[in-house]
């Protein structure tokens, strides 16, 4: 079985600060991590490989040269190879142009049974790129996968809904987007780290490597543009009342009256 896992390097949003004036993310000095949903996607692929050692896993990402770090991490966790799509021409892409570029790269890889994508990246939260890749490749897709089973080449997944899940069955080739509740990703292994740095397992593809017009990629290929980003205004600070239920009700009544939200007429 051949698996492609689409992953992304993102700023660790637990560490991110927001520029109070511009409202944008202050990325400087913020550590970069492998996007959590994508890590779950990779872990699920690795579990297939644990069961079926002949499985070949490629991790694929688009980004600046330093995005190679997440491919190294992917290989250190157990992926076989990594491909980095990196070119100035790819820069400034929205989800439309990104999925275009990734789909072209996947077509170039050619042979695949399953494509795993994380549901969404924690820096953009769009959840669009995975499904768009599926559409562009013309293969079936299931999003929000929270459980995955593979038996005799047949795939069965639980697709998370707000109040339950759907059971969906399918056959390769198929694209699945995973949520981080799917599994607990393994740590990179020490031998894996050594292998990732010492063996030439990561390739870099530039614009020239893909059969795609320049109008379909990067900023030019992006029909949407970010007009403004801002931090939602802070709502008033909440207050938690202490005491027994009766005491809390008393306190609540008192506060509501004090603030003129409740009046005794």
């Amino acid at each position: 079985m051949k698996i492609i896992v689409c992953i992304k390097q993102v700023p660790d949003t637990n560490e991110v600060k927001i520029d109070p004036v511009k409202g944008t993310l202050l990325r400087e000095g913020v550590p970069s991590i492998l996007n959590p949903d994508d890590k779950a996607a990779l872990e699920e692929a690795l579990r297939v490989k644990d069961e079926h050692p002949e499985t070949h896993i490629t991790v694929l990402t688009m980004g600046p040269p330093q995005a190679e770090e997440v491919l190294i991490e992917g290989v250190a966790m157990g992926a076989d190879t990594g491909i980095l799509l990196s070119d100035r021409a790819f820069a400034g892409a929205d989800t439309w142009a990104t999925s275009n570029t990734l789909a072209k790269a996947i077509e170039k890889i050619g042979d695949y049974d399953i494509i795993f994508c994380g549901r969404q990246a924690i820096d953009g939260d769009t959840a669009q790129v995975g499904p768009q890749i599926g559409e562009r490749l013309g293969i079936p897709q299931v999003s929000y996968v929270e459980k995955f089973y593979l038996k005799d080449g047949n795939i069965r997944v639980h697709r998370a809904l707000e109040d339950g899940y759907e059971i969906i069955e399918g056959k390769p080739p198929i694209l699945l987007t995973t949520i981080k509740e799917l599994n607990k990703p393994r740590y990179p292994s020490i031998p894996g780290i050594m292998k990732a740095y010492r063996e030439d397992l990561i390739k870099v593809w530039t614009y020239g490597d893909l059969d795609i017009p320049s109008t379909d990629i990067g900023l030019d290929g992006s029909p949407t543009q970010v007009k403004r980003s801002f931090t939602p205004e802070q709502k008033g600070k909440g207050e938690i009342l202490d005491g027994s239920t009766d005491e809390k009700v008393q306190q609540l009544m008192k506060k509501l009256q004090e603030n003129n939200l409740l009046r005794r007429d």
Partner: protein
Amino acid sequence: MNFNLTKEQQMIQKTVIRFTKNEVEPIAAEVDENQRFPTETVEKMQRCGMMGIAVPREYGGAGADELAYVLAVEELSKSCATTGVILSAHSSLGCWPIQQFGTEGQKKKYLKPLASGEKLGAFGLTEPNAGTDAAGQQTVAVPEGDHYRINGTKIFITNGGEAGIYIIFAMTDASKGLKGISAFIVESDTPGFSIGKKEKKLGIRGSATTELVFKNMMVPKENLLGKEGQGFKIAMQTLDGGRIGIAAQALGIAEGAMEKSIRYVKEREQFNRPIGKFQGLQFMMADMETKIQASKLLVYQAAAAKSEGKPYGKLAAMAKLFASETAMEVTTKAVQLHGGYGYTSDYPIERMMRDAKITEIYEGTSEVQKMVVAADILR
């Protein structure tokens, strides 16, 4: 001199930091309280490929260098010195002598399962009457056909009872003194091998420390490590390297206590201000931090020398001497900084202080380290 970490070392360090935070720190207090060997942690370390970190890849290890190994022991020990010494004893005392002195057959048969973590390694030199004077071995190995018949007792063996493979030492020719000692690879299921008393300890209480009892234990001749009579040399060289691991453990303990202390003095308020604002405590902490940094340089220097194939016996002894005494001093002061709270088991500081003490004792006491250094500079 340059101690910038390579990208590999940085990623190994980052991984072990994450591993320690998620898997080791949450159970460290419980492991100490119940004197429980953390088997589940060792299994997780095995899955992570940590148990063969410095073993060459051809024998199933990761093929990382000595500094990467030091970083791993250091990070684990910041939260749990028990876990640190499990890895240190396994790697330095279990794997390394086979890697260094073993035949190809011995490496295939014993180093591979150690490197994969399938089996844990241990080292048995100390006896009730042969501590610092390791030459006073009373365990005896007598050749008998294809085997050696070994009788005797070892004590204070780290990973005892948990390990599957032991490097043990016995007298093959008492008339030759030091040159009459030989080393053997012994499997735990060898007939005549048994585990005696399990020690209750002041610190590293989760680490298994036991007696090994050999009663007419028959060890195949092919399990002789090195040649007959080379045992003492093998033991001393192994301990030279082991000291780097223990120095890394001591360094980690001190750093862990320092991190906790820095956080505490910023939070704890007395006289209407954080206690870290008082110069008396600031001076104490400046001394602690300086000694930690000095320890770190000594430990990394010894590790680098070993990786580069340079002589490291003196460097390792100095690193262990200074790092272990620093660990004791820093943890003692950390308890002082925490005041009454630091004396209780609600905070990890008292555990760190108890754990630090052993680093001044095992794999050669501080006094032995001074003997090694003095012997080197006065030879």
